[in-house]
């Protein structure tokens, strides 16, 4: 049997459909790749997988019945990491899960289980960071707007948090790296895409778009941030460990005044 390379559309359902295909055809040597990052193997044959919701749901239901709730969310978190090769790791995890009678998601001495747990932990950390580092800016149309650029695709994970918290204000959180966002209209959250002017600078607060009082509150926040620091305890190493520099560009307290 030749090696197969399954190509899916990048969605979680697409990935699960590919897993379904692997089990259906009892494939032994197989890799799963996102269609945006396909790399041609020398000796493998490509097969395009059509996303099928019913099949995906069957796989997901099966996985959930074989794992603790923590195990299944770790699987989903790890998928959102978009790391290259993570699909194969997930497949190995899933195959191991189905081959055992008992739940195995706590088997931290198994390489794939430990690896997935570790990736899920980084994604979880990124999720938590985004819940902390999103900085809303009030626009002229009374919408609180924030742009983010997370390492992993965590927007689907943070939606609930913001919906619950900011129930009485309209907001948009936009992932400029993946070019999509979430818009809350006081009732529901919808996925949306926006076109920004060519010269739009996401790090700046431009008075053509943002409300006048926005500048005052940013200034007050910067003042507060400075005043609450204790100079004689300065520890930049610790500071940077907590807020790595790559996050600074969209933090209002880190902008030059």
């Amino acid at each position, binding site marked *: 049997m030749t090696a197969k390379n399954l190509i899916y559309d990048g969605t979680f359902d697409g990935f699960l459909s590919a897993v379904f295909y692997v089990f259906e055809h009892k494939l032994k040597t197989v890799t799963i790749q996102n269609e945006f990052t396909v790399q041609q193997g020398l000796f493998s044959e490509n097969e395009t997988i059509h996303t099928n919701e019913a099949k995906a749901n069957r796989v997901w239901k099966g996985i959930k019945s074989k794992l603790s709730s923590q195990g299944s969310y770790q699987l989903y978190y790890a998928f959102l990491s978009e790391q290259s090769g993570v699909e194969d790791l997930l497949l190995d995890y899933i195959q191991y899960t189905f081959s055992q009678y008992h739940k195995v998601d706590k088997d931290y*001495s198994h390489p794939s289980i430990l690896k997935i747990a570790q990736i899920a932990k980084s994604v979880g950390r990124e999720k938590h960071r985004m819940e902390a580092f999103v900085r809303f800016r009030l626009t002229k149309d009374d919408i*609180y707007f924030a742009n983010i650029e997370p390492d992993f695709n965590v927007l689907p994970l943070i939606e609930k948090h913001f919906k619950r918290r900011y*129930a*009485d204000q309209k907001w948009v959180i936009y992932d400029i790296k993946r070019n999509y966002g979430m818009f809350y209209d*006081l009732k529901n959250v919808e996925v949306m895409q926006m076109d920004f002017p060519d010269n739009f600078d996401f790090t700046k607060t431009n008075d053509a778009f943002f409300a006048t009082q926005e500048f005052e509150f940013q200034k007050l926040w910067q003042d507060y941030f400075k*005043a609450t620091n*204790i100079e*004689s*305890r300065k520890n930049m190493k*610790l500071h940077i460990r907590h807020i790595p520099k790559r996050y600074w560009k969209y933090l209002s307290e880190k902008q030059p005044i």
Partner: protein
Amino acid sequence: MSFQRTQEKLKILADAAKYDVSCSSSGSKRANTNKGLGDATGMGICHSYTEDGRCVSLLKILLTNHCIFDCAYCVTRKSNDVKRAAFKVQEVVDLTINFYRRNYIEGLFLSSGIFKSADYTMERLVAVAKKLRQEENFNGYIHLKSIPGASDELMREAGLYADRLSVNIEIPTEAGLKKLAPDKKREDFIKPMVKVKNEIIQYNAEKKIIKSTPKFAPAGQSTQMIIGASGENDFQIMQTSNHFYKNYNLKRVYYSGYVPISYDSRLPQIGSEVPMLRENRLYQTDWLMRFYGFDVSEILNEKHQNLDLDVDPKLSWALRNLHEFPVDVNTADQRMLARIPGLGMKSVFKIINARRFRKLNWEHLKKIGVALNRAQYFMVCESNQFEKRDLTPEKIKGFILQNSTSKYQKTLSNQLNLFG
């Protein structure tokens, strides 16, 4: 809200509030109701970090830094020549709401200098919290300071709006307090603490019968002690801390290394170093007490009145109790696993889960994340390689220090020079 006035006040009153360490925003159960603003059900979130590495989670300010007291250790003491300012209730409400809406903060931490009287001050603090809850439908986190000497009625009202209440005992011993803050009495700190404790007990009992009982300080109460201002040793500090945890059901005791702010001869002089390493060791001890099943007397007692600075308190305990080791990680119970130096509680739970599937060896443990440079001397696993030499505590300590770099290298360099 006049921007410039507010800006000026914010600078003064944030600066004066920064010595309060607590920034916790977790542990509450206040959910968003009626599509209001905010939610304090989840874990705490640190929205930013200052350059000294401390978390910024709450808008931490004083209502005013006018104060009738003259406590030597305090930057807002009456005799100190600093700019004074006072917020209006509405100003604090506006700042809190607008910062919260922009996702800058989890809520408000409001403290105050004491002006006129304890009750007068407490009343104003309560007024801010009440306005936030009732007029703004704000469900974020509110931490109010209990003003020493405030009446029971006000403390009860405070607990209805706040998530956490705290009163800082500041000086670990009564003798120290007498010396540095002669106009304050320990009883005045204790009184509001007792009231809040009793209200929480009563709330928990009533909630079981009537589900709609209004919440009372759901995130509990905490306190803070200054370290290194009044000459106490670590044993005395942790005794006090243990006393407060046990008798007042505190959620947290914070330790704050004294930052010199005055030329008062009773205190360390300006320019002397903040005892950050000592503060860190005290927090480690606090954690060992609360999460690792240690009794405080195992770590600090008449014989060992101060914590070692060069090694962490758990390692230090282990070196004094080598007869308890080595521990077999494949069979030991949770209590004993938690006592192995280099093993945190996360690793302990991972080990307990993982060893159900197969016996663990060094490779597994390393991948799980155990700090083997310390742990290896205190455990055995599925391997015939383990420490077989009969090492003395000093030897082990030497090996460990040789193979590790402390982030406090600079502070420790005096001691390390002996080996170099």
